[in-house]
């Protein structure tokens, strides 16, 4: 049952930030405003992480995502011609993104509400809150997530090398 305490008020506020910011991103015709709405939305998500006792993820969220918005703004300024006066809210592919967004939303909704992907056993959640140490161990433990971690590392390294190769002068 939903009762009114600090947790639920926080959840409400951060949800409004997340959803409102997300709506702002897609409806504002000014690219810079869109980027700033994105900050609001990501900040709300960081707040939700804090409510879930995942401070590490919250800090990383702020550092990686919100910190990178400044670079996004740079790209918006440099790569677009009239970023503050977009006349169209929709472009030609709007129906495609609408289908994808609705499909994803339905998928997640079904996953949360119905026990399709393996049960709603709330008791299976570990009582102790995972710490940053647990997270670090999970990433390098052979029985847990070391393979995805390594694959992601290789992907990032490849991307970085690719960027350097493209940026180099042809000599």
């Amino acid at each position: 049952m939903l009762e009114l305490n600090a947790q639920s008020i926080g959840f409400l506020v951060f949800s409004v930030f997340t959803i409102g910011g997300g709506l702002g991103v897609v409806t504002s015709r000014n690219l810079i405003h869109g980027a700033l709405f994105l900050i609001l939305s990501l900040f709300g998500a960081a707040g939700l992480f804090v409510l879930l006792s995942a401070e590490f993820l919250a800090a990383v969220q702020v550092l990686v995502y919100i910190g990178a918005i400044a670079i996004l703004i740079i790209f918006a300024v440099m790569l677009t011609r009239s970023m503050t006066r977009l006349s169209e809210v929709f472009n030609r592919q709007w129906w495609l993104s609408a289908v994808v967004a609705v499909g994803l939303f339905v998928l997640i909704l079904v996953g949360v509400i119905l026990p399709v992907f393996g049960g709603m056993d709330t008791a299976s959640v570990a009582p102790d809150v995972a710490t940053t140490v647990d997270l670090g161990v999970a990433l390098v433990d052979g029985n847990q997530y070391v393979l995805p971690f390594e694959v992601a590392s290789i992907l990032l390294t490849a991307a970085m090398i690719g960027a350097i190769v493209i940026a180099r002068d042809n000599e």
Partner: protein
Amino acid sequence: MECRDIINTLAACLQVSGTDPGLAQFIQILLGVLIVTMAPLIVVILLIWVERKFAARVQDRIGPNRVGPYGLFQTVADALKLITKEDITPAGADRLIYNLAPIVSIVSVILIWAVIPFSPIHIGVDLSIGALYFVAVGSIGTLAIMMAGWSSNNKYALLGAFRVVAQLVSYEVPMVFALLVPVLIAGSMSMQGIVEAQRGMWFVVLSPVAALIFFISTQAETGRAPFDLIEAESELVAGFNIEYSGMKFGLFFAGEFVHVFTNALLMAALFFGGWVGPGVDQIPALGFVYIALKATVFYLVSLLLRSTLPRVRIDQLMSFNWKFLVPVSIVNVIVVAFLLQVVRALGLAPAADLANDFIANLPQAIVLLLGSLVIVAFVLQQLRNFGRQERAAAQTVMVRKEDDVDMLPAQAAH
């Protein structure tokens, strides 16, 4: 909870006098937050005076000396002036973002104060991820400058803001790598945990390279000389804050001053033992004195750098970061992590019950210090080779020029 005195157990005291427990808790937290956020704003009044006096002495002037004893109240007069000045918003500015930027700028600095440990018991909030929190919050400052530069509708402001992203985002990399070293040694990301781990030995002894890199890159993060390219007066008029007037400009200004002192505090807490000092366990308030003294030393060093060094060019700034600081900081982290494991495997690390003992910490410190010295020696050797190559290249260019140009009689005689 029992009501002993009103300072430490305010919530309990309020409950005794009949306040609702939840409300009492809320009032106590609210007051704590107020104290932590007000402290930097009050300290900055003094800091500006110190900085102006110091810069004046370096430049053989007297500095502020009219308002109050030794000109101590000059900043108050300046603040009054800034508040009463006309508030100008440029035509075509994005009003909301324009007004929001100075606030975000100073808030991003004040938020750092929440995790600075001032004494064993006095800290805003001892987050388990304190060190990461400081980096995350610091990255918002970049955003504030970008907001200011873009919303001013001024090309110089926008150019200044573009430089910010290049500079601040780049210097965040070595800063984070340097920050990793105390985290590694302490085995904790909590600021209080990092300071506690330095009771036996300051981390600057264990890794002077990390301390130096952290100091340099935080200096660059504040955007002050010799890294003040974001507000280069000669090329950008004043950079991102050119259109701001009155107290809005004052907020950027105050934010920068607080940032410098905040970095000095972090330097003291991360590498120089923070509040650790004799008698701090008996009288926790002594912690304030110790950390303030240590921070003041770094504050004065950064003031001295600011008032004596010339500005670097943007290409020098970037190559110094990416070709020097970043590689050195990465190597340093790897060496420290490796040596820490070696020390633990050999049993040289201080036992848990002796962690606060200076002698017990010596073997570990000596091993790590030797590792640092090897890095320093290697870097110096590389720098010497680099310098030799550069000089040789410069000389061949000069010789070639002399060959190409028809020599004038005077030069030929020479």
